[in-house]
């Protein structure tokens, strides 16, 4: 059951009901026992009383001596009271003769043995006490009807339970009200949350809430804060991205206008070539922006384990066109290194950006080397070029978003490439090392923790 209110109502009502039921059973039981004891005692006393009266009168002369009992005046009819004539009495001689009996007594002998017994006579069960007086040679049997006892017990129990029956609905109403008012803070919280516009991520008020709700409110406020942070990062990123895209778009627009206005074919062709170049650059920037968000949104847990050398080869394939256009040779050395990674979605953009940077930085005719090596429990990807290298002044900043060094590749990267690499490597728990290469150029390395060969499936 998903409603706390319903659950509480059901639990409380069922619990209260069960307790009441137990009480009813218990009262009934104890009343029956108590009434049984009292009535038994009275049967016993009555029998002894009859016997002592008979003894005092010098014994029973004839069958009519039972008038002793019989002559007791009839009780005034109390109407609704059914307990009149609840006792019957028989006096039997040892000789088996019925000496006397009270009105309304059944014709058969009420009991066979001395003391208490129960017997069905004339279709009714009687509880009988038999008193034996050996001097007088008589058995005095006093009994009452079982149904009378039951009625009495029932009456007493009902007398106790009737008020309770009245109280029960009142109690239910009270429980309902209590549950309702007890859950009001939850309703208030729900309303406060549902009234909130999507943009409002301010903290919920904590002061007036009950202590039970406070952990939840604190948790919610924590969540709001994290979401706000994420949204702020996304907002600034989107603003940055939009801003960064405006420049290449402005370039495309001016070149398009030049192509329209161009007085001669040479100017027009040049503008069209510039447009093509601009589209390529913008495309690269958009891809990098997507890479950036992908690396920031961490790892896709469902990724398959892929061969590290294969990831590198795929990236190199993607960039083969660019390398060819720039007249740069791309050389891969994986040396049969066996290493599998589930982090392909992070590794591929990192490698692509390093390789792309290396290609763009390389002079025509140079070659870019990409290596995959294992050193004990570490995996090392190296990308080496013979370009100008990163200027010393830029080194501390190259992995910052949108930072472009004065000598950035082709005079205008997006400033995102190395930021992507750094973010991806960090997400993989690895390390990015950028250093000048011996003999000129840049040496970029991604060092990843790698389990010993064969440990990964």
């Amino acid at each position, binding site marked *: 059951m998903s409603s706390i209110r319903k659950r509480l109502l059901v639990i409380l009502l069922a619990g209260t009901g069960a307790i009441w039921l137990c009480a009813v059973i218990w009262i009934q039981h104890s009343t029956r026992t108590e009434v049984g004891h009292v009535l038994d005692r009275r049967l016993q006393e009555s029998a002894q009383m009859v016997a002592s009266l008979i003894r005092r009168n010098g014994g029973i002369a004839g069958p009519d001596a039972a008038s002793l009992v019989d002559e007791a005046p009839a009780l005034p009819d109390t109407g609704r009271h059914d307990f009149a004539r609840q006792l019957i009495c028989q006096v039997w001689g040892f000789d088996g003769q019925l000496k006397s009996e009270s009105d309304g007594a059944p014709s058969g002998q009420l009991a066979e043995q001395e003391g208490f017994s129960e017997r069905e006579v004339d279709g009714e069960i009687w509880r009988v006490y038999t008193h034996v007086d050996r001097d007088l040679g008589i058995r005095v049997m006093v009994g009452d009807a079982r149904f009378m006892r039951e009625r009495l017990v029932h009456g007493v129990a009902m007398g106790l339970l009737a008020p309770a029956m009245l109280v029960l609905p009142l109690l239910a109403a009270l429980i309902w009200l209590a549950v309702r008012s007890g859950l009001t803070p939850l309703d208030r919280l729900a309303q406060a949350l549902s009234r909130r516009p999507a943009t409002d991520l301010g903290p919920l008020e904590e002061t007036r809430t009950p202590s039970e709700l406070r952990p939840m409110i604190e948790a919610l406020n924590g969540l709001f804060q994290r979401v706000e942070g994420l949204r702020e990062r996304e907002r600034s990123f989107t603003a940055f991205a939009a*801003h*960064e895209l*405006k*420049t*290449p*778009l*402005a*370039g*495309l*627009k*001016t*070149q398009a*206008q*030049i192509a329209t*206005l*161009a*007085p001669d074919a040479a*100017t027009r062709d*040049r*503008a069209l070539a*510039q*447009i093509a*170049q*601009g589209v390529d*650059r913008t495309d690269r920037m958009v891809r990098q922006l997507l890479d950036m968000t992908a690396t920031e949104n961490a790892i896709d847990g469902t990724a398959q384990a892929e061969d590290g050398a294969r990831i590198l080869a795929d990236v190199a394939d993607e960039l083969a066109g660019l390398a060819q256009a720039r007249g740069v040779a791309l050389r891969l050395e994986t040396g049969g290194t066996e290493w599998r990674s589930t982090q392909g979605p992070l590794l591929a953009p990192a490698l692509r950006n390093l390789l792309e940077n290396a290609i763009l930085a390389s002079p025509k005719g140079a070659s870019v080397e990409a290596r995959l090596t294992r050193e004990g429990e570490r995996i090392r990807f190296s990308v080496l070029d013979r370009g100008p290298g990163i200027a010393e002044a830029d080194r501390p900043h190259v992995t910052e978003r949108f930072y*472009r*060094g*004065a000598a*950035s590749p*082709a*005079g*205008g990267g997006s400033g995102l490439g190395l930021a992507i690499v750094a973010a991806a490597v960090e997400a993989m728990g690895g390390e990015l090392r950028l250093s000048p290469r011996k003999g000129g150029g840049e040496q970029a390395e991604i060092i990843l923790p790698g389990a010993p060969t064969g440990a990964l499936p």
Partner: protein
Amino acid sequence: MRLLIVEDDPVLSDGIAVGLGLSGFTADAVGTLADARAALEAGGFAGVVLDIMLPDGSGLDLLAELRAAGSKLPVLLLTARDRVRDRVQGLDAGADDYLGKPFDLDELAARLRAMLRRQEGRAAAVIEWNGLRLDPATQTGRIGPRELRFSRREFAILQALVEHPGRILSKTQLEERLYGWQEDVESNTVEVHIHHLRAKLGRDFIDTVRGAGYRLAEGGS
């Protein structure tokens, strides 16, 4: 009119330079603040088109340096950040105009003309001298009912002379207005353009001052 363009995006930088060239300006483009400083030091620019986000710093810093050094060189800021706050910041830093990316080439050219016109102390778009009406937007002129058409370079020389009536402009000064760095200057081009201008305007319109340069003839309107 020779302009310095400070913009690091190669496609855009090229687009502005070529586009402004089509509108009759001469443009030199640099991609960094350091290059811009060097170019400004060399001088010869009538105005600057300045991007704010540059690889080695903010264009606003360069603008502040210029103004601090007392330069009145007109500067048009060109940037992707075109919220009101950014525009106010840019104009307050000493910019003469502000244009958000992406922009229209015609608008950029018109704003530059207006900016340079204000710099010359004129409000009217059309320059008048001695019965000649020059319209920089269309690069045409008119004397009475007669419509005059000029080549880009002819118009640039004429405009330079008309904007500074009475002043002598040397051949080098005129060449600076005609050519960017990448262009080869032919030794006698200015003379050729002056010759063509005299043919269109009348022999006495432009005086040659021996050994010094050229100026508009006196005795005009």
